[in-house]
């Protein structure tokens, strides 16, 4: 098992290096550059050239890449082009916001989606199944911004029950330790902050979890259906086992692989930033930041954030692979 873990870890390194080169080159392939974006309507070829020089963008590409990677290896993510602000500081405040929202959304989606899928599979073609799967279809079909704005108008403006701007009210003081406000509130015993943070999480998490919920429920259903038709399930039933052990011990464990995969992939997607949800709810995460930075051609931000995100993606895949091996011992050998 430990050999498998080490092998998978080593395999991740080329992926990260590949991503760094790809992002670096792709950014420079698209037209427009930070100098143009800074200058806006004032962009004249002379102004652009002067700023390019000051930002070091006129150096040869390999040199720029080496400078970036060299700094990175020393733990320096660089400064933003617009504003010259250290990226590490910015990332430190934004990344926990995205992680917190993603974890809440994926947890809700899994806790609700997996049982939904199991029930649908077990009671195939029943009213429960049809209703659940229709709900799931709706979940993937309703555009995020429509759902988000509906929730804001209903719970925020009309009923005035839930806040919809940011992570916490500015009147509440919270000592941050991890940057995850729920965790920080509990660690510091600040119950007012905990309540406030959770209230801020509800609408964005509900908006964000609909798509993963629908996907997880559908994958669980189809994976379970496939397993339930296998001979060994029939054998188990023939042996006189009760429905509960058949479903949970025999069927579910074998159906888990695709479910784990999809939960891992969905979490990875959420962590790379939910641009729309973050925008609608003024959520200070990395999705909106990355999006704005691409528009502004702020190369250092896009490069560093993409690298960090792909690192996280690789780690999640790594954890999923290890979970595979735990769930299905045959994989370790293969």
């Amino acid at each position, binding site marked *: 098992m430990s050999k498998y873990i080490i092998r998978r870890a080593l395999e991740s390194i080329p992926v990260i290096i590949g991503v760094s080169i790809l992002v670096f080159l792709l950014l420079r392939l*698209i037209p427009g*550059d930070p100098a*143009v974006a800074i*200058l806006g309507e004032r962009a*004249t*070829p002379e102004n652009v050239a002067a700023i390019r020089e000051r930002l070091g963008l006129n150096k040869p590409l390999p040199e720029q890449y080496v400078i970036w990677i060299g700094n990175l290896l020393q733990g320096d993510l660089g400064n933003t082009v617009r*504003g010259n602000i250290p990226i590490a500081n910015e990332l430190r405040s934004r990344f926990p916001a995205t992680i917190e929202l993603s974890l809440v959304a994926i947890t809700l989606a899994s806790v609700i989606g997996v049982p939904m899928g199991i029930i649908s599979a077990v009671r195939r073609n029943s009213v429960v199944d049809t209703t659940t799967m229709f709900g799931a279809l709706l979940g993937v079909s309703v555009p995020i911004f429509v759902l988000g704005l509906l929730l804001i108008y209903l719970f925020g403006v009309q009923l*005035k029950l839930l806040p*919809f701007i940011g992570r916490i009210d500015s009147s509440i003081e919270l000592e941050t330790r991890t940057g995850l406000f729920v965790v920080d509130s509990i660690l510091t015993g600040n119950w007012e902050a905990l309540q406030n943070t959770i209230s801020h999480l509800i609408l964005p998490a509900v908006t964000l979890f609909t798509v993963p919920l629908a996907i997880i429920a559908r994958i669980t259903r189809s994976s379970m259906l496939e397993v339930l038709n296998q001979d060994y399930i029939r054998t188990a039933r023939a042996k006189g086992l009760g429905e509960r052990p058949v479903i949970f011990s025999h069927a579910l464990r074998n159906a888990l692989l695709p479910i784990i995969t999809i939960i891992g992939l969905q979490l990875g997607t959420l962590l790379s930033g939910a641009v729309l949800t973050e925008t609608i709810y003024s959520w200070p995460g990395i999705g909106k930041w990355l999006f704005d930075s691409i528009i502004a051609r702020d190369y250092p931000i896009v490069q560093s954030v993409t690298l960090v995100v792909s690192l996280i993606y690789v780690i999640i895949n790594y954890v999923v692979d290890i979970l595979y091996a735990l769930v299905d011992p045959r994989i370790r050998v293969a």
Partner: protein
Amino acid sequence: MRRVLTYFSLAMVVLIVAVAPAAAQDTTFRWGAFGNPVQLDPALVTDGISLNVTNQGCEALASFVGSTTEVEPWLAESWTVTEDGLTWTFKLREGITFHDGTPFNAEAVKWNFDRWRLTDHPQHLDEEGQVYEYYEAQFGGFDENSIITDVQATGEYEVVITLSQPIGAFLNNLAMSNFQIASPTAVEAAGAAYGTPEVGYVCTGPFKFVEWVPDVQVVMERYEGYWTEIPGNITRIEYKSIPDSAARFAALQAGEIDGFEQPNVEDIPTIESSDNLYIVYRPSFNTFYLAFNYRIQEFRDPLVRQAISLAINREAIVGAFYNEAAVPANTMNPPTIAIGFNPDVKTPYDPEKAKELLAQAGFPDGLSEVHVLGLDENGNVTDEVVETIPVRLYYMPVVRPYNPDGEGIANAMAADLAAVGINAEATSAGDWSTYLSERSNGNLLGLYQLGWTGDNGDPDNFIGYFFHDVDKPLAREGFYQNAEVAALLQQARALTDPATRDALYKEAEAIHAAGADRVYIAHGPVPLAFSKRVSGWVPSPFGKELYKYVTLG
């Protein structure tokens, strides 16, 4: 499953009931901005959000009067200038301190000017990525290129600034947000971190910096040591980042913010009919235009250009796409500018005349294809046709106060042009950065949209900014060339007498318009939405509104 759902619903209800949003303090002003500031050192930034924040806490030697583009003394009490326009003497106000207690005096002013203009100043820090874009734009560059050649503290409260050539807009420049005076002590202590979220700004204004949480808010508090009376009652400002326009409107309706800029045109009637909200219009200080790329052979003919100008129904476009306070444009300089607006220039809508002119120009059947001319090694347009292409009308991919809907307006323009026989295709050139890049390199081969919002109230920063150097064809301006216009603008730039300058700018506009050198479409005022608890707002043409005038009920 049913149990899970029941528990979940119960948990939601308990949470929802437990957490009604708390009411904020009465004298806290909460503004909904459409984004995060870039940086809070006004010398280094150009974006409206950053400058909107620093304007509340930082001040310059001069200031704009109320809702106008006129300049009045501010941190300087008065000034005199020698007859040649080269030596300015500023008498500073006494008894002012920066937020960190550093005294404001002639040394502090000199220190700031030296920091902006001298690349070897210890706090210029251009090697570390600090870009003083506006200093360069307004004063010609740094070191020996700077039009400001010397700044001396000639007394504790007297500063003498020497110029290498007169600048007509010198005082307007000094009133710009980018030339607000910072505490030298604070900048020296922070180095390149000055203006970042950790440090913020340290100036002399009515509100001092407290905190900036990126993408959340900037918090400012009333500065008790402010040198003059604060007319309004705000004690705290929360400048919130709410990127989605529908969410900003919802936040205003829910009472989470007190005001925001540029509500959607379709939300304005709701706001105006609401009991709790109202709209204020910022006087428009911008111009939206359609430019010709002069590498298109047909566009070099004034008859074709005039036909296009006559074919476009500006009134209809303004009525359909802009808010009720917008007006059609005839000239580059807007009517709100202090000098240089020419009311005699008229650009009527007359499709029949347009057809006549097209026929006269040799296109009785209209125009569907155009010819692209080549460029020589010096960037001059040659007579050789290198390509035949459809008539393209490039539209802006972003919303600006001067252009609320690039694609929609392009389609409306294309329909107007089709009515006189010109078949133009509304064309995208990619995202904003790409669009700007293509425009500045002269690659938008056809008609293209763009606009301008003035920075300092002076025509040199309006028509002068674009055309003072078109004595040669410039890729940036679609290879437009008009030596007569350029000469007038250069002459006006270096004069200080407003009446003489006014006449020169009017003449330049008239010549520019006679050939329909460019098609001006609209001036779009920016609407601002407020809660009725806000009063005393003084709108500014540049968006330089000061919250010190605001009273919260």
